[in-house]
């Protein structure tokens, strides 16, 4: 399974990921129509900063997802690729998912009065946020290859 990894040390705080995300979730999926859309599309990930560190905070699509477990109306479900997604019409706006998400990345569509969250750009090979990142602070990695890569890095650090 491919996961979006965040590398805070590479984040410039430019918010290109937020823009890419909002455009991908707009009607026409182009920047210029997205900026004219009313109400404007909203991003599903957020660049935050504290103590001089900047980083995008994103939905982890947790294996044991608190939002999914807490969803009382059957709106949230896990799709065939393993992504936690919404059946929009089922959302009743109880905000249980917002309360439960440990990352704070589920928000409210004030217009439609339903919960909004990352859908991992399930129709795309590369999610819009990863595609928009100019520095590689957001990368798409195979979760099963990460430990091996880490082990190699440990060895390299030892031998240097």
């Amino acid at each position, binding site marked *: 399974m491919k996961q979006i990894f965040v590398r805070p040390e*590479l984040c*410039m*705080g*430019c918010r290109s990921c937020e823009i890419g995300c909002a455009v991908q979730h707009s009607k026409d999926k182009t920047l210029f129509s997205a900026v004219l859309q009313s109400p404007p599309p909203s991003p599903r990930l957020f*660049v935050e*900063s504290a103590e001089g560190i*900047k980083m995008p905070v994103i939905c982890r699509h947790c294996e044991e997802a608190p939002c999914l477990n807490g969803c009382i109306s059957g709106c949230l479900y896990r799709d065939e690729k393993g992504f936690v997604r919404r059946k929009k019409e089922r959302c009743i706006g109880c905000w249980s998912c917002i309360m439960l998400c440990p990352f704070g990345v589920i928000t409210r569509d004030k217009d439609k009065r339903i919960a909004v969250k990352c859908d991992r750009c399930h129709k795309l090979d590369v999610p819009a946020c990863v595609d928009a990142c*100019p*520095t*590689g602070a957001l990368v798409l990695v195979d979760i099963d290859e990460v430990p091996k890569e880490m082990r190699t890095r440990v060895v390299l650090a030892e031998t240097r």
Partner: protein
Amino acid sequence: MEKSIKEKSLDRATLSALDIAEKTKIRTVWDRYAAQKPQCGFGETGLCCRHCLQGPCRISPFEHGAKEGVCGANADVMVARGISRAVAAGTASHGGHAKHMAHTLLKSAMGEAPDYPIRDEAKLKAVAERIGVKTGGRKINEIAADVARMALADFSEKESPLTWAATTVTKGRVETFLKYGVVPTGIDSAVSESMHRTTYGVDADPVNILLGAIKSSLADYAACHMATDLADILFGTPSPVVTQANLGVLKKDAVNIALHGHNPLLSDIVAQVADEKELNDKARAAGAREGINVVGVCCTGNEVMMRHKIPLATSSVSQEAVILTGALDAMVVDYQCIMPALAGVAECYHTRLITTMPIAKIPKALHIEFHEANAKESARKIIETAIEAFRKRDAAKINIPDVTTTAFAGFSTEAIVGALALVNKEDPLKPLIDNIVAGNIYGVCLFAGCNTVKVTQDANYTVMIKELAKRNVLILATGCASGAFARHGFMTPEATEKYAGPGLKAVLTAVGQAAGLGGPLPLVLHMGSCVDNSRAVDVAVAVANKLGVDLHMLPVVASAPEPVTEKAVAIGTWAVAAGLPTHIGVVPPVLGSKVVTEVLTSAAKDLFGGYFIVETDPVAAAEKLIAVMGERRKGLGLSA
């Protein structure tokens, strides 16, 4: 993360106003800054470019990502172009200010601006003689017209160096500038050249681009000097006055009018008219027992503080606080450093925001255009608008913080030399030089620049001045730097007693006694607005000429601990070109380029003697400036 209120400012009056803002949910500059965070690292490091329509381009400072823009500009080119355009914008601003004055001086000389008589004939003659205009046997108006025409000629491209640069620096500086090809021949043409060389596909040599920025900054210097000269000619050369500072200068029972912006062409006239009996009677008839009370904000506040003793309400970053007192009836603005946000804050109160300049309008503000031909009429209309607004005040919203400090202001070069002449009539500079040589004055630091949301307001200023003063460094200040010192009581003789080292205290006391103050001079010698940084150069040039050395050898430094504007970037750059080690307390957008960073902080020293010292920690910054002054003292064979 939002800053806690205490982290926003050290100024009790500002904090009190921010408290009101928080309670009433009025957004201020600090809220808007919080909303901007995190700010984009590409912009922070200077690694973005929008100079052509193939962009915008960004260069990644990391392993991943593009290493050059679409045109092939690398990080060095991009950063150099960006900083060069900032200098050009600063030059354009001071140029606009000075040009406005030159046009008015010409109109005055031609009898077309009756409200702008020549108030300082001695200064007019001194400037005329310096720039080569004949004065003997000529009428004042003829001299003024020639000076104004010479000034206007300095804006276009000439065959010769800028008059206001070439006639106001040391011979050594002129030679250095010629050697590196950075002598501007026109103020506007220097701006234009900077825009040209930084556009798509022109200058791609980062060092050459930076030399272009220095050329443009020298045009900025000329504009500053011209603005100072012409302001003195039209409104009088400042001499020391005692006045008040901070929000407590607003009066509950007066029609309060704040003058905010830069050019005394507006503020001085409003200040003059505000004394008229008829208008004060109208104000009293409207219920304002104390009549009209004019206060200053930002640089124009410095202009009227020096010449009319008008109290300074606050500095640029806290401009919204004046409205938040609920007692401001009109905020009258011209140009530069006027936050568009003022209109939104004014809407929450009865306050009228009044714009006056054709190039600086703000939606929802009242625009009363100011014309030289009938300046006083426009000023009266502005004041009457304020009186009308006063009637609509909401007493429940009034919260004037009970905070004021005393401030001694108005130490023009002429005033400083005048005070020194009381100690030594034949050779006024001698006492200053003797004391520098003896070490009673270890060096001189000129504080300039703004307040920024990126630093707790005044935090860097108040730490640095204490560190430097106790080490016997003579402190000069202009612009919002002086505003910070004024609001914290540093522009007083008491501050000298409290903070000056023994050598400095003895000197300031001797001069103060000779001047009949019965005590020392204030710890900070207030030289005026941001264009008046030229006054500090005049003092340094006089000292250098007297000693027979050039500026880059003197133990004189500059510091902008909390800078904001492109004008500050321009001033900092010419300070470096003038040979001054120049400290800045926030990191400028240059770190994306090793070459540019290295040129500005190190290689510039080999060319001009001056260079930038970037240090965000105020104690460390003071240490570095002390060390530099020590180095220079050694160079002159003085005790370090």
